[in-house]
């Protein structure tokens, strides 16, 4: 019994020693420190700042008014009065307006033909042509939808005049027999930042952990005389499992701090939607951080030079963001990419975080994601142990020579 206890104690001391050793390495290595501390601290602030204004207002448009009527002026005035569109230029003809688009001064053109008022007054359908610069989707939507809404309002006003009603209530029913109310949920302003940022925050967590671990591993190899991952001059590094646990403790600790900062401090600073309770966040972030750490440990065995992990991780970050289904809906992601996305903790971490944090879901509502995160954590832990055992044997072999 006492031998067992002794071995257990010995194991523990080794784990704690490796933990301390890794921690010191992280703090002394400015490259690792940059990715584990500066990136999680600074990057989210920068991104939040970029998207801080959330929505696009006053998209500049040019108007070509060939009708020169009271009705056309009312339409232009109505469009200009909306928050989304700003009538910045009046052009004489389409060519002049086109050159304004070419010089990036306006994002769209409203062309009101010369027979506009005439047709409307005759009781026929008149048409306003809208030319959109399609290079900016947000601007296109603002320019086009404003025109549609204002044309509808103008038409409703004309119909009310024609109807000859007595009361305001009758007018309202003429304009809109069926009221349709649209309610935006979970991101009421429809802002770009509130939509994309939670995903970016979670992705930063995984990428920072993986990059940090990878770079530290690369440094360890480069410092080693045989180019091995596991030092052979330190008696505490004498088993693969204690190395994995020791490293996991170190990076898990840093990851926990980063996770708390990213999930609570940053959204609060920039007042992004936050409906989660602390415990829900905890139960969601725990498996995600663990899965990211073990994922990082597994990947770190693949790198020979410390710079290579940077090339790899930077390359995958944009595709990873796409596979989470935040900018491109999950239901439209082709099946094979859905399959690939299962390899990465970020896919489920981001989905669970958005639902818990932005949409106020309870843990039971994101149970499928949480389950997969735990499975990923377990599988990557197993794989980390396997690859570290392999590395351990390699190091032994080299040391023997």
């Amino acid at each position, binding site marked *: 019994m006492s031998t067992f206890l002794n071995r257990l104690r010995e194991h523990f001391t080794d784990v704690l020693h490796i933990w301390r050793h890794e921690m010191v390495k992280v703090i002394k290595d400015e490259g690792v420190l940059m990715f584990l501390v500066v990136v999680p601290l600074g*990057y989210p602030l920068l991104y939040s700042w970029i998207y801080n204004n959330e929505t*696009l207002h006053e998209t500049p448009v040019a108007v070509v008014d060939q009708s020169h009527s009271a009705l056309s002026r009312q339409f232009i005035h109505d469009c200009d009065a909306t928050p989304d569109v700003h009538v910045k230029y009046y052009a004489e003809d389409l060519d002049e307006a086109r050159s304004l688009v070419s010089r990036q001064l306006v994002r769209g053109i409203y062309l009101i033909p010369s027979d506009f008022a005439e047709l409307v007054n005759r009781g026929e359908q008149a048409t306003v042509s809208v030319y959109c610069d399609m*290079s900016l989707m947000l601007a296109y939507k603002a320019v086009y939808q404003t025109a549609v809404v204002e044309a509808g309002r103008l038409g409703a006003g004309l119909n009310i005049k024609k109807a000859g009603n007595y009361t305001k209530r009758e007018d309202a029913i003429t304009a809109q027999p069926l009221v*349709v109310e649209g309610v*935006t949920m979970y991101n009421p302003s429809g802002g770009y930042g509130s939509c994309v940022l939670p995903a970016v925050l979670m992705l930063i967590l995984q990428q920072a952990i993986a990059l940090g671990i990878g770079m530290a591993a690369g440094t360890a190899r480069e410092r080693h005389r045989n180019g091995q991952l596991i030092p052979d001059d330190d008696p505490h590094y004498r088993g693969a499992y204690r190395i994995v646990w020791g490293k996991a403790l170190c990076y898990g600790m840093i990851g926990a701090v980063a996770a708390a900062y990213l999930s609570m401090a940053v959204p609060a600073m920039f007042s992004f939607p936050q409906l989660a309770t602390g415990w829900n966040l905890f139960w969601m972030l725990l498996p995600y951080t663990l899965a990211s750490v073990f994922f990082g440990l597994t990947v770190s065995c693949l790198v020979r030079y*410390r710079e290579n992990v940077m090339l790899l991780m930077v390359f995958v970050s944009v595709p990873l963001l796409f596979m989470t289904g935040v900018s491109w809906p999950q239901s439209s992601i*082709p099946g094979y990419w859905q399959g690939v996305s299962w390899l990465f903790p970020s896919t489920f971490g981001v989905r669970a975080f958005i639902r818990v944090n932005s949409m106020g*879901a309870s843990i039971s509502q994101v149970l499928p994601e949480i389950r997969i995160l735990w499975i990923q954590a377990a599988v990557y832990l197993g794989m980390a142990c396997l690859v570290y055992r392999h590395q351990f044997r390699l190091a032994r072999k080299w040391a023997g020579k």
Partner: protein
Amino acid sequence: MKYFSRILDIALRELGILWRNRIYGFCMIVFPLLLVVFFTTMLDEGIPQDLPIGVVDQDNSATSRGLIRNLDAMQNSRVVYRFANVTEARCAMQEGKVYAYLYIPEGTAAKLLAGRQPQISFYYTMTCMTAGSMASKDMKTIGMLGSMAVGRAKLSAKGASSRQIRAALQPVSIDAHMIANPQSSYNYSLTTVFVPGILMLFMALLSAYSLGMEMKFDTGKEWLARADGNIVVAILGKYLIHALVFLLVIFLYQYYIFEVLDFPRLGGVWKIVRLSLLQVAGSLGFGIFAFGLMPSLRMSMSISSLWFVLSISMCGSAFPVAGMDAPLQAMSWLFPLRHYWMLYQATVLNGFPVIDVWFHFVALIAFTLLPWFVLRKVKNAMLNYVYIP
């Protein structure tokens, strides 16, 4: 002539380096091609279709069923769930099963017929903006059609022709011209910025990497010796090969999207070639400059990668630069991708003359010339610095 042969000599040496270090092969050819495949297949639909949507139909009338059928028939929406009440629908939304739901309260049809202005509501989540705005667009259309159905029935009973009905219901219609992207496809607008953006990231990273590797393995002295100590010749020779390989990859990518996938473009081939040359030169220039500022492999690579990852947001293709805070608008000038994208959308996508965006053209040339300021520092680093892991 002397310079020429030296440049060629260094270029051949560089070719050997690219051949031996597998990282170059991966980052210059394999990863970029994977990216092209990833984005073009991922966004193949162009616009999201058949988004899962739920309905809460408490009216259960012919009218409400008609509305739901119409919604299901829309291109972007598919009705996959019918919920008994709003709470159930909201839970399904939180679980990620639906992006939106339509709520038709009891008595809608009866009120509609009696002219008592009933109200139906749709709820959509904007946590995925593409899905949310698509679903809300479809539901808005359905609501409008529902409104018009009443008027249409009344007018046709009075004997109006279909043309008269159309004019009466919608006195002013909108005729939309979506220039250079008539399908409003996300594939056309996202692939064309993400692929070049990440390619530029690789260009900058690898140009810093290749200088850093010379220092790391202490081959810089030999490299400079081949150029007879002339750093300009040394750099020209080294990056000639990088530029050629990247140009080849870019042309492959452009051939694929413009010729095979038929991405729209109003600009001609020369405009594409000119843009590609600037893109490669500007990015390589940035990478060399980053190394010159901080002659350390890891710092210059870290700076390049952080800068270029940021540039994907700062180029303003998703959230426009005009919508950002003023200091950020000024800062956007420091990102090569911003200039690339402005030139791309103006000259290649819309086919406008380059003179209208000349400042972005000049900016990319300025990025190309940036290494000029750090040439001496790079030389000094090669000759005197020692790599510390």
